[in-house]
Each structure stands twice: as structure tokens, then as C-alpha cells.
């Protein structure tokens, strides 16, 4: 359960103040698959960064799992990112010098899991994304779609409550993109809450619920109010 109220984010530079988000309210129930759409520059990434505790809002309150997260210190936020949230980035963000296994291992080491548990989780996650045979490849030896699947495995291995994806198909061709979307659907079907940001209108409303951003505001107020009880979907 994720709940944002009156969230605002202002980027101030010497010359201008950009209102990247304003008066933003959103509730996401457990198990939902929400797509956040909007044109470039409308504040989608800003929203996702705040949702994922990568940035602090300028104003407003944000509760994750019932916990007010705005006041937490850096260490506590790092823990939440590590334990409750899985991230999928547009450009995959795999660590180029680590092979597939070690990439997936990174967040598990931060959590301090014992080696045997980490190995098991890595195997399971690779099984889910269908890359068990590539465990010793470097990112540079994989296609974009495979890299994104490794990134998804890295997010899944932490068994997060929330999966946050920023344009996960933005750097992929359409075939690879549909593989990735199908994978996210499967994951959502297993109960993980997914919030996916995209400017690809063909994916709008994909998971059953769409939130549209325009110029830092919700474009259709209904979406914010409606706690769509759907979430599992094709």
C-alpha cells in the first residue's frame, strides 16, 4: 500500500524553479499494476523517484506500507529501498564489470543475507526471467532485452513488495519490449505491486489502471480517487 498526498517537487536552479510535480495525490493498493503515462517532461520520473525514495518531495506526505517515510534518515531509506522496493531502469543500469550472478547479488549483499540464501535467490530469479544459462555472462555479452531481464531478476531476487519501473521498454525493440511486459505481468500475477512509468501510449492502462500526468499534475483526477481493485491482468 502506497499513499501520496499533496506531493510537490520543485527543482530550483539559479535561473528558474521547475514545478516537476504539484498537488499530487495517489494511492496504490497491494497487488495493483499501475501504468503512469504522460509526455516527456511531465514529471513521471520525478514521481517514480519520490515513490522509490530516491528523492525527497518538496512538500506533501508519503506513506509506504503505512509508514510515513518522509522523515526517515538516509540509512533507513536505503534499507527500505533494499528490502521493499525493486527498481527497473530504462537503461538497465547493470554494473558492467560484474557478471549476471554478481549483478543480481549486489542488493542481496547489502541486505547481509548469507551466501547460500543469496545463491538460491539468484538461481530462482534467473529461472523466472529465463536466463539461467547466462549466469556467468557480462552485461556487454547480452542483448538489451536480456540485460533488462537480468535487471528484473536483480529486482526480484530481493522479493520486493513494490516493483518500480521507469520506461523499462524505452531502450528495447518491440519484440523484446513485449517479452519484458509479459514478464512484468507474470510477476504482478504472483502478487507484487508494480508501478510502471512510460511515455509509450500503447502501454497505457496495460495493467488495468492508468495514471496520466500532464505538466506535473494528474491529468484525470478520477484516477487518483479511484482505488481500482483490479491489478491482475493481461
Amino acid at each position, binding site marked *: 500500500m502506497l499513499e501520496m498526498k499533496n506531493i510537490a517537487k520543485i527543482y530550483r536552479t539559479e535561473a528558474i524553479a521547475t514545478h516537476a510535480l504539484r498537488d499530487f495525490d495517489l494511492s496504490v493498493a497491494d497487488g495493483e499494476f499501475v501504468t503512469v503515462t504522460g509526455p516527456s517532461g511531465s514529471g513521471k*520520473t520525478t514521481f*517514480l*523517484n519520490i515513490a*522509490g*525514495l*530516491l*528523492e525527497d518531495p518538496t512538500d506533501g506526505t508519503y506513506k509506504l506500507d503505512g509508514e510515513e517515510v518522509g522523515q526517515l534518515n*538516509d*540509512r533507513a531509506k*536505503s*534499507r527500505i*529501498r*533494499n*528490502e521493499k522496493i525493486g*527498481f527497473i*531502469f*530504462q*537503461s538497465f*543500469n*547493470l*554494473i*558492467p*564489470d*560484474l*557478471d549476471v550472478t*554478481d549483478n543480481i*547479488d*549486489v*542488493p542481496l*549483499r*547489502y*541486505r*547481509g543475507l548469507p551466501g547460500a540464501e543469496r545463491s538460491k535467490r539468484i538461481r530462482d530469479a534467473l529461472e523466472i526471467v529465463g536466463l539461467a544459462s547466462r549466469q556467468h555472462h557480462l552485461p556487454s555479452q547480452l542483448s538489451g532485452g536480456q540485460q533488462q531481464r537480468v535487471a528484473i531478476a*536483480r*529486482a526480484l531476487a*530481493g522479493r520486493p513488495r513494490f516493483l518500480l519501473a*521507469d520506461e523499462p521498454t524505452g531502450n528495447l525493440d518491440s519484440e523484446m519490449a513485449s517479452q519484458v511486459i509479459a514478464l512484468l505481468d507474470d510477476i504482478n500475477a504472483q502478487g507484487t505491486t508494480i508501478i510502471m512509468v512510460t511515455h509509450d501510449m500503447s502501454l497505457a492502462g496495460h495493467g488495468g489502471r492508468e495514471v496520466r500526468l500532464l505538466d506535473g499534475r494528474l491529468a484525470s483526477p478520477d484516477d487518483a480517487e479511484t482505488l481500482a481493485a483490479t491489478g491482475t491482468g493481461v
Partner: protein
Amino acid sequence: MPDLEIRPILGTMRRNPVGAILIALQVAFTLGVVANSLFIINDRIGLINRPTGFDIDNIVTVQSTLLDDPADKLQQVRTDIEALEAIPGVIAATSVTQLPLSNSGSGTELFASADPNAPEVNGARFTMTETGLDAMGLTLAEGRWFREDEIKLPSTYGDPINVVIVTRVMADALFPDGNALGATVYDHLRRPVTLIGIVEHMQGSWISWQHLDNNIFTPQVPMQRFARYVIRTEPGSLDQVMSQVEPTLAATEPRRIVQRLRPYSEIRDRTYTEHRAMAIMLGVVSVLLIIVTAVGIVGLVSFVVRQRTRQIGTRRAIGAQRLHIVRYFLVENWLMTTGGAIVGMALAFGVNYWLANLFSLPRLDPWYLPAGLVILWLVGLLSVFAPARRAARISPAIATRGAAL
């Protein structure tokens, strides 16, 4: 036990070895030089700080040359000594022919028996008066010092003497079984002399001589117009006494040249000039090398942090605490430093072994190698700390906002 990520760090280093190798080589070289330098510096400081056996910090020396041949040189010397001892703050004064630690002087030899095959025992020779023990601040271990009636004006320093005093090391060299005191020893012409006293310790003339501590005292005053005086002062009175020496000597006999009035410590310092210069030079070289190494590490880590900005942001996004980021760079650098240091320790040992054999230099005490290792660990950790902290401040938002991975 926290997860230090050693295996993935080593893997990353293996894939990008250039920076790590450069740092490791620099560390190896620095460790080799620093360990050897510390060893030599310590060795030199040890030499300089060897106990002298006399009260070096409270002694003034001076040299006097009479303009005319004295009618009675022995009396002249006695008058000078009495006048010098009358200066307030003076404990005692004596005449000497040569000064310990001056790197100049003359030596002679003694024999434990008249047997022509008896081994000769070499020592430097110091002529002193009955006040010599107090004027030098020596410690008498056994027997007695010279009496006033034993002091002679020799016609040459080879004149026969009746009594002699030696340092303990010299006594033990003459009589390894002990019982030196009261024994008859034989001078360079095999003339018998009675050994009346043993001085606990005094360093002799030549600091590099293996028998520096073998010293012979004879009861004589300097010949002809020349005399040198050793004046021992109460602690703290040295400067004040020094200002009185020339006027005092001028008052007893104005027709003379007074030269080389100086604190004894100056004589020692001048004798050890090269040792000290060597120690300082090696110290400066070591410090400079350490600075160069530190700058190299700071530079490399700063470069790597900038290069990996996106990666660090991503690590933060997926759950790294700032501590994890700092620790990553500390461990990475620690591995490089340790790798280099192991090579450096082996090289330092090998090069020293080779040099020691070639030039018969002292063999490196192996403890300087781990000491060098610890120094370079500290240099490494301190150098990494600032750029690693900068890395830890990289925003996790970088992960979604771009920058090179």
C-alpha cells in the same frame, strides 16, 4: 562479519587492472624505499644517541696556544685549571690532548703480558689530570683515578708511565677473565704499567671505529705551548661559563691565543654531520614518496568515482547505504595497497640482501617491512577516505537521471 565484497571487487580489478597495477607498483616502490630509509634513519639515530659515557651536554672545551715557551708547563696548566674551576658554575676542569668524538686523536696499544705473542689491544689515548674524572663527568667503576703527584709533563707522549686507567670494555679485552684492576699491563714498548682504575664507559675519538669504546687514560698534561681544556659546568650554567673562559685564561696568561671555545655537543654534532644529513635526506625522500603515493591514490579514486557515478547511484538506489559505498572504495584500495605492499616487501628484502652482500651494509631488520606495510595501509586508507565520502554523497536519483554507468 560485514560483507566486504572482496570477490566482486577483485573481479572488477581483474577486468580493469591498469589503475590497480599503477597504484600497486607505486606502493611497492614506496614501501621498499620507506622501509629501508626508516631502517637506516633508525640505525643512524641509534649511532648518534649511543651513550657517550661523559657529561657531554654540560661541557665546554677550549684550546689555548701560548705565544712563548712556558718556563714550567705543568705549573702553567695547573694555574689555568685552577682559574677555570674558580669560574662560578664550573664543577671541574682538566687538560686533555685530544677530544672524544672529535674524529681525530691518537691511539696506542696495551698488552696483558710481556709475552711477545700476547695479543695487542688497541685503544684511543687520552691524557688527563687528577681532575679529569670530574671534568668529564665519567663514572669510575673500579679502583681509583689519578692522584695529583702522578701527573707528569712528558717530553714525548711515548714517555714511560707508571699508572694507567682504561675503560671497562678495554679492561675486559685485556683480561677476559676479569681481575684487571691492579694488574700489570704493558705499553707499546712492552714496559710495565699498573692498571689502577677502570672507567665504566667512555666513547673514544673515531665514531666509526669498531673499538670506539676501548680507551686509555694516562696522567699527563699537554706538551709545549699547546693545551686543550675540558670544563664541566653545573646544568644550566654552560652559556654563562662560556662567556668567562676567555677573560679567565687571558687573566692568568695574556700572551696566548684562545681558540675553538665551544660546547661539547657541537663537536659531536659536527662529527655526526654526515649521519644526520643522511637521515634527514632519507626522511625527506620517504615523506615525498608517501605524499606522491597518497596523491596518486586520491587521483585514481577520484577518477574512478567520477567514472562510476551512475553505478554508484544505482547501488544506492538498490539499497547501498553510504557506509557500503565508502567501504567499497576502502576495501578496493586496501586490496591494491596490500598487493603492492607484498611485492614491495619482497623487493625491499631482496634489494637489501643484495646491497648488504655487495657493500657489506647492515642487513635490513625484517620488522621494518611490516612497519612499512602499516604505514602504507594508513596512507592508503587516509587517501581513499575523502573521494570515497564524495562517492557516498552521490544521489541515488542518478540511477534514473542519467550519467555514465
